[in-house]
């Protein structure tokens, strides 16, 4: 039996998302390892242009078009994918470890009986068995994972880890499949997208960003750090826990679910360096981290580090930056 690797194409508002190309990248490597071929699975409404483009990066593009597939809806996606799985028996189905994938992969796994490993940062295929590498305990430890023997597997892929598949001259075929969906889907309905408004400064435009994390302990320290940011000619930003605790508004958040920034200088104070944060700031020209935990993952991405309590350092920096202004 010819092995097949499915990659579920992730798209939003008509645009294919980057994680798709990354999945095609890792899927291609696994296909070469396991003598399998790579299939992009494209579910949507009027997807012809996307299909043509994806055909330059996969040996086959399976397309299912349906009104109900225009926006991501896990109920519809799951029905269609489960039906494609029972027809094509893919050895592995790759899905993004994203807001869409996290809403879909676990229930698909239960329905199909295919074991699932989520949030993979490494994947390999040995004798039709999947092995994965995951990052756990806030990025402090990695784990090698094996999955129980099965006809098929599902893995969700962390975005920003795997190199994307580039387009090639050789084009894969496009196969249209009819939609198994019928009638209206009542259990879950897409209503609308909502974009968060920008209330203050746009942090994505700043050349210097001073960013705070949960490690600053409380909102009482923010005015002092705000002043440092101002003295340096920069803006104040933060990581997710700071927004969750209402110390700063959402439009200040750097991270997967917030803004992606690429300033000249990024000064991270009390930020541990969770993947969700790092992935959105690692494009900065220079990263400086202040953290009292010398093992904090932020130091692996920073150019310069200060291992100390920020309260020992920031008051001095505040005075010095004020004098230098």
């Amino acid at each position: 039996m010819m092995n097949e690797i499915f990659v579920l194409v992730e798209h939003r508002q008509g645009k294919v998302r980057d994680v798709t190309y990354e999945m095609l990248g890792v899927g291609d490597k696994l296909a070469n390892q396991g003598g399998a071929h790579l299939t992009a699975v494209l579910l949507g409404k009027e997807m012809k242009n996307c299909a043509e483009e994806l055909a330059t990066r996969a040996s086959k593009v399976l397309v299912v078009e349906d009104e109900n597939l225009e926006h991501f809806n896990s109920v519809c996606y799951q029905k269609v994918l489960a039906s494609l799985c029972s027809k094509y028996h893919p050895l592995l189905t790759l899905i993004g470890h994203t807001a869409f994938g996290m809403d879909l992969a676990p229930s698909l796994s239960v329905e199909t009986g295919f074991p699932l490993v989520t949030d993979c940062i490494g994947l390999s295929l040995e004798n039709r068995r999947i092995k994965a590498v995951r990052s756990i305990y806030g990025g402090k430890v990695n784990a090698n994972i094996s999955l129980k023997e099965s006809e098929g597997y599902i893995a969700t892929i962390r975005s920003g880890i795997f190199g994307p598949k580039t387009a090639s001259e050789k084009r894969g075929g496009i196969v249209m499949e009819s939609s198994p969906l019928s009638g209206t889907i009542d259990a879950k309905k897409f209503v609308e997208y909502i974009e968060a408004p920008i209330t203050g400064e746009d942090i994505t435009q700043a050349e210097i960003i001073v960013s705070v994390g949960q490690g600053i302990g409380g909102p009482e320290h923010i005015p002092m750090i705000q002043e440092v940011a101002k003295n340096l000619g920069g803006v104040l930003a933060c990581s997710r826990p700071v927004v969750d605790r209402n110390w700063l508004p959402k439009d200040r958040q750097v991270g997967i679910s917030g803004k992606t920034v690429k300033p000249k200088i990024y000064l991270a104070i009390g930020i541990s360096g969770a993947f969700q944060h790092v992935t959105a700031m690692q494009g900065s020209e220079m990263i400086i981290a202040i953290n009292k935990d010398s093992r904090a993952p932020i130091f692996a991405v920073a150019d310069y580090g200060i291992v100390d309590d920020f309260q020992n350092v920031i008051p001095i920096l505040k005075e010095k930056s004020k004098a230098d202004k």
Partner: protein
Amino acid sequence: MDITVCVKRIPKTAEADIFIEKDGKNIRKDNLVFYLNDWDGYAVREAVLLKEKHGGTVTVLSIGPEESKEVLTRCLAMGADKALRIEEPAIQDSHLIAKILAQAVKRQSFDLILTGVQAEDDGYGQVGVSLAQMLGLPHAAIVNRIEIKGESALVKRELEGGIEETVEIKLPAVLTIQTGINEPKYVSLAAILEAEEKELEEVALDKFGLTPNEPTEVTVDQVFFPPVGKMAEILKGSPEEVVGQLTEIIKKKKG
């Protein structure tokens, strides 16, 4: 509106020194402090807020060792009405956890089940959505707002890049709760003492016809420290000296 919330007790690893067990399959836990998973704390608070608005009860549920009673008591102090602990200290497999939870929640009536999006320790982000499928219920993951509208709920899901989507979902349903959905409330010592009087039931796994030797879908073969790539150049000296160096670096970069 009766709500069941599934919670997990986890070790705090941020700002802690991490050591690996001799067998290489997990980290050492004896030097770590344990607490209620952050996401689950938001889920419990959300359940209590919904109860205050719509009436009903909140039941919290945890699979874990004897010590999990501490986090369940904390949930009771946060406003949950009763708690159930399922005795099973070692299971790490998300699929199996969902299977046990599915058996446990079936014993009571509910309109809504909440879990955290994921646990801070192993971060599979899998249990809530698997549980929904096992129970044959609709679900929504990564929810940061819930509005109950009769037989259904209007929920907001957090997507990437600062965008959210609204979906309408039929009840009963399973929702996995994102941090920041509400404002956590301070839990007083008095509330904890009062919570110790509330109902906390403990049951063994065999009550659900399951044993600790159920097959698992994933196995951890080995844990290891991530390979060290490029590391930051650590500035050395007194705080004054360090800030001096830092200022020079920033000045030079600013040009």
